[in-house]
Each structure stands twice: as structure tokens, then as C-alpha cells.
């Protein structure tokens, strides 16, 4: 009879909760749950408003790869050679892809099917980003809790649920590497701090596993590979070296590097390329440092000094020798362009046009700091200030992460995504440090004012009034009522309402943009039903993934820009005169050429506006390409009167403007008026000799041309 009571006593004892702790636990759980729900729901906007669809360019490829993984199995995916892209080269997809997101989606898909939920793989892929944003919330909470305290953790989790910089990359349907990688990255950071704090082998081992997942997910894992050694060095320089640090970093380096080599795309790079050398050097240095420390603890001081000198000389000589040999024999790989462009923002635009041509790789404008982080950009400095007030090992990591992420975000727009979580965590700390001391004060006021007329209005209402008063009558800011913990958070969330609205607008704009972007893809599905199965499509590389996804036809180049000269050749086709382009097309065995033309609709990111990049990139295969021939006499890029002679003759111009001069789209504008460029095109009447029009969509957005056969008589 006594058994149940016995059990329940044991239960409470093992969990060790008093009533207050239970309440706090419940409260934290509730806040996290709400944060997760919010982050999931606001990302569903595109799906609810339009339909469940994959956006943009790269997600299309990821989706296609996931289908292969689910339908044909792991080994087929591992060995997948995609002959439908990069014709005639093909692409070894299994070895040149970060498979983390595909494996995650396939796992979820299989779990759901095992539970007898018959979901479609497309829906799993669409929902991946919102789902992982929930995981990011939880992981961010633990990371912040590890660095600071639970209150800051809750704030950080709420912030990251809505921060626009992350939101814009993880709306439903953007099935891209980043949506998984951010979760993995924060998980890594949490485990790094945890393992440094505890010095336990277990947590260090888990760090390695999280690192493996990060490596499998995104090329940005190099950020972790480099920030951790820098962190170790900083800790040593600050005199905060401890054996915990040794255990954490050494385990991470050895097992982490070995695990990262299991991903085929990384492979031997993990021990050969220069980006990974920093970690190795710090690892060796840490071993020496630890060894010297150990000797110091063993022997008296004078003996130690002698030994230390010998050791120092020996290791120094060996290190110099090794570095010399490695560079002399060419063992160390060259630094890749993307890495250089991180250190020197102007490097890419000078040397590598293909990197500079991507909008995401441009340096960040000032405005986007505010747009992507909103009020967090103001709170971050406060967060760093509070971090310095209460320094521990974890806080140093956070400060380093924040400052490096801020630098990299300035170099490349895309990396704003890395800064967003750092900003959330720092702001969470700032918020909690600002609010917690004040709450006690507010409680006192509340007790004094208990008889006032407002005393019955509690909960949500009072905090709303508080917000209103706080924002509009700052002088009477004393009259804030009834601040318990919950209400502070309600206040906080209602303050954030403004932010959410901004986020909605942001995501709405993004969605519109994406719908505009994906209209070409729907149109390109014309190819699926009207061309031969083995037809080869030539287009600028931006549309490669979408054509192979929608139309299921072979493309010459796609968004995996692994072969620069192939892309340059396609660029050369587009900027050559018709006859020469025809010759190259025949050599490449091209059947159809697809161009995106926005001049009739007013869609500004079309091929004519991108055209300077094909010209610059094709310079690398054919040095006779002269950019100035495509410009007007005074060096401007125009399609109207005075346009460059080479531009008017180029295939791109002809394919875009073929028969355009015959049509008058609007009453007010003359025939041949290009809405994007805002002028009448230079050459209205011309005929195509080697190409024939196959398809033009209703808004003229997609134009597809058939490459004629070679004439029978020479």
C-alpha cells in the first residue's frame, strides 16, 4: 500500500523541485513553447498566402537531391552522378554537396512514414526551415543560459524567433543549407561553451558530433573551425588557460577534424587547405603549452628554466622546418577566393567576377544592419558592455563571436545571417540585465499604488497601458503597474509587436519577390511538355537549378558554379554576334536557349540588367571580349539610342528584343519601349538567322529559342 507514496516521494526527491522551482520551470517551458510557436507560425506566411512551394534557386536543387535520396536510397545518392547538368561534363553530386539538409529531411520523412503519416516529401522540404527555426530557439536558450543566465536565455530565444535577418532566410519553402546550419552552428557554440565550462570529455565529444552535423550542412563551418582556435588563443593570452580548455579544444580538434573528413565534399581539405591550418597550429601550440605547464608543476624553478629553453628551441626549429617543407612541397593548398574576399572586401570584385556577380556576396549597406536586426542593433553594444561586467570563459566566446560575425556581416550581405543569432544573444543579455534590477523597484511601486484606480486591471491590459505610457508619456513612466515576471514578458512581446509587423512586411516583400522570381520557373516548365526528353537548354547559370527542377531537362550550367570556364563559355555565347554564338551552341550541342526578359513587364532583375557579368566572366576564356564595346561612347550601359555596337549585335540583345519593336504594350509608350531601362530600344527591326522563336510567355518574361539545324548546303 505504501508503494505509490514512496514512489512519489522518491520522484520529487530525484527531480529535486520545490514549488517555486517548479513554477519557474513551468514558466520557462511555457515561454520557450510560445517562442517556438511564434517562430513556426510567422514563417508559414508564404505557404498560407500562396501555396506550399519551394522558392528561389538553390532550394530547387536541394529538393531534387532530396527526392533522389528518398526514392533511390542512401547509396544511390552517395554515388549520384548528375548527367542532366553541366552538359557535357556532368556533375558528381554525391561528392560535391553538403548533404546535411537532405539527410535531415529524409530522416523526418522516414520517421513520419514509420508513424503512418503519408506526407509528401515536398511538404517535408517546405516545412524544414520553420521546424529548424524552432530548434534554433531552444538551442539559443541553452547557449545564452550557459553564457549568462536563464532570463537572458528566454529573451534571446524570443528575439531569435523574430529577428528579420534570420527570418528572411528561413521562411517556409526556402529549403536551403542555411536553415539547418544556423541551428547546428548555435548548437556547436553551446556545446563549445559547455565543454570549456565543465572540461568534461562527454560534452567535448558531443561538440564534435554537432560539428559533424554543421560540416555536413553548410560551407560556413569554416567559421567555427577558425573561431574556436582564436578563442583558445585569446583565453591563453588573457591568462585564463585551464586544463578544462585543454580537454575541450584538443578533443574537438582531433575528433572534429576526423569527423569532418567523413563528408566527401570536405575530405582531405580538412588537413590540407589553409583555412583549416589555424586550428592545427593552435592545437600543436596548446599541446606544447600544456606540456610545459606540466613540467613546471613537476620540477623546481631553475631546472624548469633550462628545460624550457631547450624545449622552446627544439619546437621552434621543428615548426619552422615543417612550415618551410609544407609550403615548398606545395602540401598546403592555396587560399580560396571566397576566403580572401572575407578578409579583403574588395578582393572578389577585382579578381573573381563570378563571386562578385552574386548579389549576396556584395558588401553590406548600412541600412541593412537596421533592417535585419532592428532594435537589436542598438542593444548589442549594451550587451557587450554587460558581458564585460561579468566576465567568464563563455562570455569571452560570445564577445569574440559577436565581433567576428559583425565584421563578416559587413563584408558580405549573406553573412548577416551569422550575425543575427549573436545579436539576439547579446541583446537578450542586455535586456535581462536592464530589466531584472528594475522589476524589484517596480514591484515596490506597485504595492504602494495598490489602492489606485488601476489596481484591478492586471495582466495583459495593464502592461499594454504600461507600454503606451512608456512610449508616449515618458515623464510619467513611474506609473507602471503590476509588473510580475509574466507581465514583463508580455510587455516585452507587445513592444515587439512593432517588430513583428516589420517582419511581416519584410517577409511579404520577400515572398512577392520570390513569387516574381519563381514565375520564370513555372514558365520554364513549358520545356517539360514541348521538348524532347534529351533536349539541352542553355541559359545564364542563375536559372540552371530551376530549369532542371521544373522542366527536367539537361542544362549547360547551373547555380553550382564549380566550373568557371564552362560558365564563361555560356557567357561568350550570350555576348557574341548571332553567327558566332550559333557556332558555339552547335559545339555545345545546345537545342534551346532561354532568356529572362523583364522589359515588357518591368521586372528589373532580368538578363539584360545582368548582362555586364556574362561579359566580364567570359573575358576569362576569350580575352578579345572588350567590355567597352558593349557600352555607350561615354561609358554607360544603355540599350536605347547610342547603345554599344557589340551590345546591339549580341545574341542576348537579339533574343530579348526580337519582335519587341513591333509591339506597343502601353498606350502612352511608343513601340519598343523597355519599361525597366525606361527608353526605346536602339534597334527595332532585325531578323534571326540561326535561331527561331519557340515560346514566349504572356508577359514576355521567359523567351525560349530553338537553335536551328545546320543548313544542308554549306
Amino acid at each position, binding site marked *: 500500500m505504501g508503494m505509490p507514496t514512496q514512489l512519489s516521494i522518491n520522484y520529487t526527491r530525484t527531480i529535486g523541485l520545490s514549488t517555486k522551482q517548479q513554477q519557474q520551470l513551468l514558466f520557462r517551458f511555457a515561454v520557450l513553447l510560445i517562442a517556438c510557436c511564434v517562430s513556426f507560425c510567422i514563417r508559414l506566411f508564404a505557404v498560407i498566402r500562396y501555396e506550399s512551394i519551394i522558392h528561389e534557386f538553390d532550394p530547387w536543387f536541394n529538393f531534387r537531391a532530396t527526392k533522389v535520396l528518398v526514392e533511390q536510397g542512401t547509396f544511390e545518392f552517395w554515388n549520384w552522378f548528375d548527367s542532366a547538368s553541366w552538359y557535357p561534363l556532368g556533375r558528381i553530386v554525391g561528392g560535391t554537396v553538403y548533404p546535411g539538409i537532405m539527410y535531415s529531411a529524409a530522416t523526418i520523412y522516414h520517421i513520419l512514414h514509420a508513424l503512418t503519416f503519408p506526407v509528401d516529401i515536398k511538404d517535408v522540404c517546405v516545412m524544414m526551415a520553420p521546424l529548424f527555426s524552432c530548434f534554433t530557439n531552444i538551442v539559443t536558450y541553452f547557449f545564452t543560459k550557459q553564457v549568462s543566465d536563464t532570463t537572458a536565455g528566454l529573451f534571446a530565444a524570443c528575439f531569435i524567433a523574430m529577428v528579420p535577418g534570420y527570418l528572411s532566410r528561413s521562411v517556409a519553402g526556402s529549403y536551403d543549407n542555411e536553415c539547418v546550419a544556423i541551428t547546428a552552428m548555435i548548437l556547436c557554440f553551446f556545446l563549445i561553451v559547455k565543454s570549456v565550462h565543465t572540461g568534461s570529455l562527454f560534452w567535448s565529444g558531443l561538440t564534435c558530433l554537432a560539428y559533424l552535423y554543421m560540416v555536413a550542412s553548410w560551407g560556413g563551418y569554416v567559421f567555427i573551425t577558425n573561431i574556436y582556435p582564436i578563442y583558445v588563443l585569446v583565453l591563453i593570452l588573457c591568462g585564463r588557460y585551464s586544463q578544462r580548455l*585543454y580537454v575541450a579544444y584538443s578533443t574537438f580538434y582531433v575528433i572534429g577534424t576526423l569527423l569532418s573528413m567523413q563528408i566527401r565534399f570536405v575530405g582531405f581539405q580538412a588537413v590540407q587547405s589553409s583555412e583549416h591550418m589555424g586550428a592545427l597550429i593552435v592545437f600543436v601550440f596548446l599541446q606544447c603549452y600544456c606540456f610545459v605547464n606540466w613540467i613546471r608543476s613537476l620540477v623546481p624553478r631553475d631546472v624548469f628554466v633550462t628545460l624550457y629553453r631547450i624545449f622552446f628551441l627544439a619546437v621552434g626549429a621543428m615548426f619552422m622546418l615543417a612550415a618551410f617543407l609544407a609550403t615548398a612541397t606545395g602540401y598546403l593548398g592555396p587560399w580560396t577566393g571566397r576566403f580572401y574576399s572575407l578578409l579583403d572586401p574588395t578582393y572578389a570584385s577585382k579578381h573573381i567576377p563570378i563571386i562578385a556577380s552574386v548579389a549576396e556576396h556584395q558588401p553590406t549597406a548600412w541600412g541593412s544592419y537596421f533592417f535585419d536586426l532592428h532594435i537589436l542593433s542598438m542593444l548589442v553594444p549594451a550587451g557587450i558592455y554587460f558581458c564585460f561586467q561579468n566576465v567568464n570563459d563563455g562570455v569571452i566566446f560570445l564577445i569574440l563571436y559577436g565581433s567576428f560575425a559583425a565584421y563578416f556581416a559587413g563584408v558580405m550581405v549573406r553573412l548577416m545571417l551569422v550575425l543575427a543569432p549573436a545579436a539576439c544573444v547579446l541583446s537578450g543579455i542586455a535586456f535581462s540585465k536592464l530589466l531584472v534590477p528594475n522589476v524589484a523597484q517596480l514591484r515596490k511601486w506597485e504595492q504602494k499604488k495598490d489602492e489606485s484606480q488601476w489596481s484591478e486591471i492586471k495582466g495583459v491590459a495593464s502592461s499594454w497601458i504600461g507600454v503606451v505610457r512608456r512610449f508616449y508619456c515618458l515623464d510619467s513612466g513611474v506609473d507602471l503597474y503590476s509588473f510580475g515576471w509574466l507581465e514583463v514578458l508580455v510587455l516585452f512581446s507587445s513592444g515587439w509587436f512593432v517588430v513583428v509587423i516589420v517582419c511581416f512586411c519584410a517577409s511579404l516583400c520577400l515572398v512577392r519577390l520570390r513569387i516574381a522570381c519563381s514565375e520564370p520557373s513555372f514558365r520554364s516548365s513549358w520545356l517539360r511538355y514541348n521538348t524532347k526528353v534529351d533536349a539541352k537548354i542553355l541559359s545564364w547559370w542563375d536559372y540552371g537549378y530551376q530549369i532542371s527542377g521544373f522542366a527536367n531537362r539537361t542544362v549547360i550550367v547551373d547555380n553550382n558554379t564549380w566550373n568557371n570556364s564552362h560558365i564563361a563559355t555560356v557567357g561568350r555565347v550570350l555576348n557574341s554576334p548571332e553567327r558566332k554564338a550559333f557556332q558555339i551552341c552547335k559545339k555545345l550541342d545546345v537545342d534551346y536557349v532561354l532568356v529572362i526578359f523583364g522589359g515588357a513587364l518591368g521586372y528589373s532583375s532580368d538578363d539584360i540588367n545582368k548582362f555586364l557579368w556574362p561579359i566580364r566572366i567570359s573575358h576569362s576564356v576569350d580575352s578579345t571580349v572588350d567590355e567597352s564595346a558593349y557600352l555607350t561612347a561615354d561609358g554607360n550601359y544603355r540599350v536605347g539610342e547610342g547603345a554599344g555596337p557589340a551590345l546591339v549585335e549580341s545574341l542576348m540583345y537579339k533574343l530579348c528584343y526580337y519582335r519587341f519593336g513591333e509591339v506597343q504594350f502601353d498606350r502612352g509608350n511608343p513601340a519598343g519601349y523597355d519599361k525597366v531601362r525606361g527608353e526605346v530600344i536602339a534597334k527595332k527591326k532585325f531578323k534571326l538567322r540561326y535561331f527561331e522563336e519557340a515560346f514566349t510567355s504572356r508577359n514576355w518574361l521567359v523567351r525560349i529559342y530553338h537553335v536551328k539545324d545546320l543548313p544542308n548546303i554549306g
Partner: protein
Amino acid sequence: MIGTSIVEASKQLLVHYKNSVPYHLKVIDAFLLYVAFTAAIQFVYVLLVGTFPFNAFLAGFFSCIGVFVLTVGLRMQLNPQNQSPANRWQRINPSRAFTEWLFCNLVLHIAVINFIG
């Protein structure tokens, strides 16, 4: 002059080592020496013969380095001198430390077996 001081210093080091290090740590040190020696043999082999099955070399070498590093970590946690508040290792008892060591070794060697080819 330098030669004698080296010999002198090493002798002193040995004496201090013998006197101050407890027995069970000496056993671990012997194991560490063995592991380091195995790694050194592989490294010399690669220098002499060449890196051809590079994955096999990396797997073997990382196996040794990994075990070495993990065991140093275990040794640090077992060392009674290191139970200072700065290390916060009071709560890690020997059996727990050993289990964690086993866990990390498991992860390491699954990767090694996968990679060795």
C-alpha cells in the same frame, strides 16, 4: 656546458617524476608513451614511403593522436593535484571520467573505421 646542464636537468626531472607522480598515473603515462610511439612510427613511415592511401594514414594517425589527447584529458581529471576550484572537476569521479573517455573513444574509432577504407 649546455650538454651537462641538459643531462643534469633531465636527471632532476626523472627524480621528481618518480617521487611525485602516483602509481596509477605512471601506468597511464606508460600507455601514453606507447601511443605516441605508435603515432611516431606511422609518421616516419609516411615520410619515408609516401602518403599514398592518405585516408588510411590519416585514420591511423588520428586514431593515435585522438587516443593520446583523450587519455591526457582522462589523466588530468584523475590527477589529485588538479582538483582545484579553477578546474571544477570535484564532481567528476574516476568512474564517470572513465565512462566519458570510453564514449569519446567510441566516437573516434567509429570514424576511424569508416575512414580507414
